[in-house]
């Protein structure tokens, strides 16, 4: 088990390295000239040369990459061209917002997945209709689900707010995760309000992953219920309920868990879109603004951060899988 974990973490480092190379190359050699965007088009040739020297743009590529990585590791993420502030400060402001939304989305996906897995396995014509509807819901892009949510729950019913994270000011808590901060400071009304703001965005981002999860879970459950070991358990007098719980769920859990890991990438990209729609002041909104203003450094850093987030989560999922299911370690 330990050997598996170490090996998996080793490959994690490799993937992170490759990801940073990719982002580095794209940010340096992709869009535009960073010096020109800093100094403007009217800068003198000597100023440009001095700036190039200062930024180390004339160094050989490996040296530049080394500088880049060591600066990253020291927490120096460069300047954000669009806001004229350090990228690090921008990220620090917005990370809790995205984290709050991401955690809620993950929870929602699991709940949707588990609930729908039961519905998904319904037999007969009704089951067919349900499956078709779910397939349709999962095909809908996150921005459509979000838009529909706004129209139904805000415009028509007026039940839920659709803009920002709270009706009050920023929380005075420590974590920056508003729902949690409200609870910690004993301000329940604040938490409740933050939760209401959270519902629609999190639902919009979690519908697709939730349905995908439900499909895998339903498939896994029906396979393991029909398996030889389930039959053996039944013949030994176990009740159907206990067969499902002790044998079915455990075996169905590992494909579902790895699906959740894969879907996490989908969720991240949905979050970017959803934050934009609900004016959620997180990384996604910052990313879209940075794209709009060709702020390459900010885009590169956010991509790297979100990418690293995904890669780390998936490594953890793999290790968790190995812990649940010994067969994984051998393959």
């Amino acid at each position: 088990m330990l050997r598996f974990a170490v090996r998996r973490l080793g490959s994690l480092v490799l993937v992170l390295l490759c990801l940073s190379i990719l982002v580095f190359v794209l940010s340096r050699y992709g869009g535009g000239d960073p010096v020109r965007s800093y100094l403007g088009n009217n800068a003198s040739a000597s100023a440009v040369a001095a700036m190039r020297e200062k930024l180390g743009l004339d160094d050989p590529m490996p040296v530049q990459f080394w500088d880049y990585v060591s600066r990253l590791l020291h927490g120096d993420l460069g300047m954000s061209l669009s806001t004229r502030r350090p990228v690090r400060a921008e990220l620090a402001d917005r990370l809790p917002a995205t984290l709050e939304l991401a955690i809620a989305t993950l929870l929602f996906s699991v709940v949707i997945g588990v609930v729908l897995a039961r519905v998904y396995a319904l037999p007969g014509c009704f089951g067919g209709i349900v499956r078709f509807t779910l397939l349709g819901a999962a095909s809908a892009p996150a921005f459509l689900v979000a838009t529909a949510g706004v129209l139904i729950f805000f415009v028509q019913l007026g039940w839920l707010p659709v803009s920002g994270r709270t009706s009050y000011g920023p929380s005075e808590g420590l974590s920056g995760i508003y729902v949690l901060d409200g609870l910690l400071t004993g301000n329940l009304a604040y938490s409740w309000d933050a939760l209401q703001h959270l519902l629609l965005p999190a639902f919009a981002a979690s519908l697709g992953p939730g349905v995908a999860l439900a499909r895998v879970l339903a498939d896994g459950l029906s396979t393991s219920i029909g398996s030889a070991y389930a039959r053996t358990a039944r013949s030994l007098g176990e009740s159907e309920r206990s067969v499902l719980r002790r044998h079915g769920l455990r075996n169905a859990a590992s494909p579902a868990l790895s699906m959740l890991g894969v879907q996490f990438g989908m969720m991240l990209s949905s979050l970017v879109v959803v934050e934009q729609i609900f004016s959620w002041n997180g990384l996604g909104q910052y990313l879209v603004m940075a794209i709009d203003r060709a702020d390459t450094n900010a885009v590169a850093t956010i991509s790297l951060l979100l990418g690293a987030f995904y890669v780390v989560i998936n490594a953890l999922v793999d290790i968790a899988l190995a812990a649940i299911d010994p067969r994984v370690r051998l393959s």
Partner: protein
Amino acid sequence: MPSSPDATTVPAPTAAAPARRRMLPLPSRPGRRGHEARPVGAVVALTLLGVVVLVALLGPALSPYSSITVSGPPDLAPFSAGHWLGTDHLGFDIATRVVEGARTSLYAACVVTLGSAVFGLALGTLAGMAGGWVDQVLMRLTDLFLAFPATIVAMAVAMGLGPSLSSSMIGIAVIWWPLYARLTRGEVRRVASSPHVEAARLSGTRGLTLVRRHVVPSVLPTVVVTASMDIGGVIAMLAGLAFIGLGSPEPAPELGLMASSGMQYILGSWWIAVIPGIAVGLLSLLFTYTGDALRSLLRGTGA
């Protein structure tokens, strides 16, 4: 196609063996999905798909309006005379723009999927047939790409190349081929050890001929079915990238872009944002459903 799979008979070397997954005589399981083989569903889905593709191809010829000029009063609701799906805030005809957008989406998604599938097929076949260190290296590379977060990499690539439709297409292709490489490699390994390939090899067929005549035909159906399902995903992903500003600039009739610029008017004229969104959802659903039906057919043949 033979009506029942029989591993002991060796088909004639020239006959393309049907690609099929291992079929075990499964007992009918309680609560098991009851939609395994549904030729009706597949026929309906394919017909619908045909209609959509036809409409998209004929596109401009079907509408009296242009997709990028004002053709009526702004903010006209759907089902208005002369404008079936209404007009947007500038007075552009939404139906015309949606058809045009669907055409762009279909084209882009097909190019991306085809490109990734061909590349992945080639690489996967090479890895599967060569074995040894070639296989090791190629599959490690594939795993590396699979470990990247798909949409984030697509975003980074699209941004690096400068926002445009073609850069987001490249961005998606970069992360899409490994799926096919992996799939193909697995299938090739399976087919390579099957009796008909063995027989062809014994009778002296070698190298590319063996691959072209005996291996690829067996692998192709699986790849094609997967690709047809994937087109839906690519359409949704392209729309997502366009939504956050990584596609063509305004006023291009691109579904994702139309939805995102329509968001500003959501309180007054909901249809400007919703209709393109529904179009993306329907296109994506249609491909996913068709692929799903095709896969069930493929799996269900002879069962």
